[in-house]
């Protein structure tokens, strides 16, 4: 009996292993595919791939001759015989591109248009990128590319590539795809404990401040990578004109609040505005000038905190939102030049207009006397309202409207008959 069991158990084990192996082999080629059918044979027709395969970086599925990893050889509902939408296919293998709690994401990545940056088969550049480092980024971020190229003072990490600071897909660490928010990211290279750092910052404890409020991380024409427009006292390191000593208990506290801080130097401008009948109230609140301006350095003219439209939209977002919905837009508004018509500090006219009358404001750009035969001006009463005169805004809305020529009404007839009611049909 013992002899029998010694024979049977190994025999059964052999049968089991053989069965499993043969089963596995069957599953691997259950369609009885020919050798190379998953990829290599594709080159029989797609012979241009021969050239592509000479690239130094080849996508792993292609390297493994697994074209069917992405493509369906027979039919597909998706372009290029893909097994699914392009982005979906990529993330089926590249599962770690997007952190679970991403703070910021790259639009092209989240939309699944990976091929805007990567070649899915092979490329000259690492990670199958279709171009090299920042050159690739600047294909879309053109304005930034021009700025970086023109900068007199370069920031070394930018020269090395955008990925020095940014994550190209998504970041759990910071806004605008930054690997970490400012100042943490900056302090990884710039050691705030060093004497030179302290000296450059006048001894102020800036390691907790937002570096990008003064410095342009992409390069600048100013020393120290300050933004191109620098406030004179700041450029001269006259910090004490506005702040207490750097060693004070609250070193960043300003010597006065609101517009009164700026009054010492800009008294003429401020007093001139305070004498006008209508004030832009933010100028007088506790924040004052700093509602719109920065005190140190800015990329914008007039030391504005942001481009003018964005500054104005901080409060007048409804106007900006309206513009996004209308068909015809007034060009100064779309160009971000609100001050073409409005005075940002104070005015003697309602709506903070630059000129005493609407007609004069418009006439600063439009030579209305030549192109308009309709009577306008103080001598012509508006038939709709005895206390109004006919002016440009009688027919046009200054920022834009859903209708042609920025008219208030959908058609010229409808517009005209708001006054010329006898002709209304």
């Amino acid at each position, binding site marked *: 009996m013992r002899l029998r069991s010694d024979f049977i158990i190994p025999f059964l084990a052999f049968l089991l292993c053989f069965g499993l192996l043969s089963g596995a082999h069957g599953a691997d080629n259950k369609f009885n595919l020919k050798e190379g059918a998953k990829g290599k044979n594709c080159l029989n027709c797609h012979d241009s791939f021969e050239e592509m395969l000479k690239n130094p970086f080849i996508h792993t599925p292609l390297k493994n001759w697994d074209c069917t990893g992405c493509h369906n050889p027979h039919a597909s509902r998706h372009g290029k015989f893909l097994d699914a939408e392009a982005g979906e296919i990529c993330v089926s293998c590249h599962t770690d591109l997007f952190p679970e709690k991403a703070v910021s994401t790259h639009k092209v990545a989240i939309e699944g248009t990976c091929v805007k940056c990567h070649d899915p088969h092979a490329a000259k550049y690492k990670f199958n990128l279709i171009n090299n480092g920042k050159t690739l980024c600047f294909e879309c971020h053109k304005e930034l590319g021009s700025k970086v190229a023109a900068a007199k003072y370069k920031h070394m990490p930018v020269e090395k590539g955008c990925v020095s600071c940014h994550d190209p897909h998504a970041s759990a660490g910071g806004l605008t795809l930054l690997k970490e928010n400012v100042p943490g990211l900056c302090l990884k290279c710039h050691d705030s404990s060093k004497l030179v750092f302290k000296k450059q910052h006048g001894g102020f404890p800036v390691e907790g401040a937002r570096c990008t409020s003064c410095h342009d991380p992409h390069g600048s024409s100013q020393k120290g990578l300050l933004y191109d427009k620098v406030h004179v006292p700041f450029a001269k390191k006259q910090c004490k004109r506005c702040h207490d000593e750097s060693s004070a208990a609250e070193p960043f506290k300003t010597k006065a609040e609101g517009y009164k801080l700026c009054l010492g130097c800009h008294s003429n401008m401020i007093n001139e505005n305070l004498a006008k009948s209508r004030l832009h109230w*933010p100028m007088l609140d506790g924040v004052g000038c700093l509602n719109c301006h920065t005190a140190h350095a800015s990329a914008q003219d007039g030391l504005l905190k942001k481009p003018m439209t964005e500054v104005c939209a901080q409060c007048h977002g409804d106007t900006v939102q309206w513009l996004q919905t209308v068909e015809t837009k007034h060009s100064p508004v779309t160009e971000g030049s609100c001050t073409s018509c409005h005075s940002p500090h104070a005015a003697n006219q309602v*709506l903070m207009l630059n000129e005493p009358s609407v007609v004069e404001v418009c006439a600063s750009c439009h030579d209305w006397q030549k192109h308009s035969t309709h009577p306008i001006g103080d001598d012509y009463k508006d038939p709709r309202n005895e*206390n109004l005169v006919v002016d440009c805004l009688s027919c046009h809305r200054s920022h834009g409207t859903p209708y042609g020529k920025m008219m208030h009404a959908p058609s010229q007839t409808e517009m005209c008959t708001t006054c010329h009611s006898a002709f209304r049909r």
Partner: protein
Amino acid sequence: MRTVVIHILIMALGLCLTKTAVCEQALIFQPVVSIYSDTDGKGLLHPEDVACTADSIFIADTGNNRLVHYGLEGNEVKFVAQIHFSQLQNPIRVQLTSKGEIWALSSKDRRIVRMTADGQFLGNFEMKSVPDQENIVPRSFRIDRDDKVYILDIHGNRVLVLSARGDFLRQIDLPKELTAFADFVVANSGTIYAVDSVAARIHTASKDAESFTPLAKSLKDRMNFPTYITTDNSGNLYVTDQNGGKIVLLGVDGSFRGQKAGKGWAEGLLNYPVGVCLNGNGLAFVADRNNNRVQIFR
């Protein structure tokens, strides 16, 4: 020479005089008449506020640096007088005390000016012992039934409460985040409602509160740029959406109850309106700023 007296028919006025509460609820914002000018034919210019009683209207005729007094007599709006002196520069708010004085916020020099009932200059309202007094920037002010004076100080981001003699009583802090408070109102209950133009949100402080808290959520989807707020005897709120050209009605809890008027020139429509006064007799007076008129609704 323009029309000396503007004749109007104010339907149901007699009923309203005797049944105030009923009329307030029945305020449907139907246009009754508009005031365009005084007896000399001088037109209103960008009026920004109206104070009213059962039989009087005081218009802050901002662009003309004056107040204009009209009387309500039966079914007529009758010009009484203009109030004009050098201390009154661009009046943007006008209020009445229980003693019949007229107070106005002169925005150009940011002072509150006091006048007798017939418009004689009494002096500026002087504040006493207010913390950080030298930096006060009054954006709006109100006088309650006990003649306590409330001032919205946008520099200090607070509402100051003072006695009629100017003695500092207390302050109520407004939120510190990016805000643009343009106006507030003191309800009969003593609760204060302040309107933030940028967030299109109402903040409230109960009678003895030390700070404001948001009342309901932002009304961004209902309003463009609210700049004025008032209340009726029932505590309902009327918020002027300046850029939207409309009056938005809110319940005591801040819930949206509807909107009236709309942007335009025609009677019943508004163009950058600001102040609203409810006279308790079923009439609402709206400073229709960019239409250079005050419209009366019932």
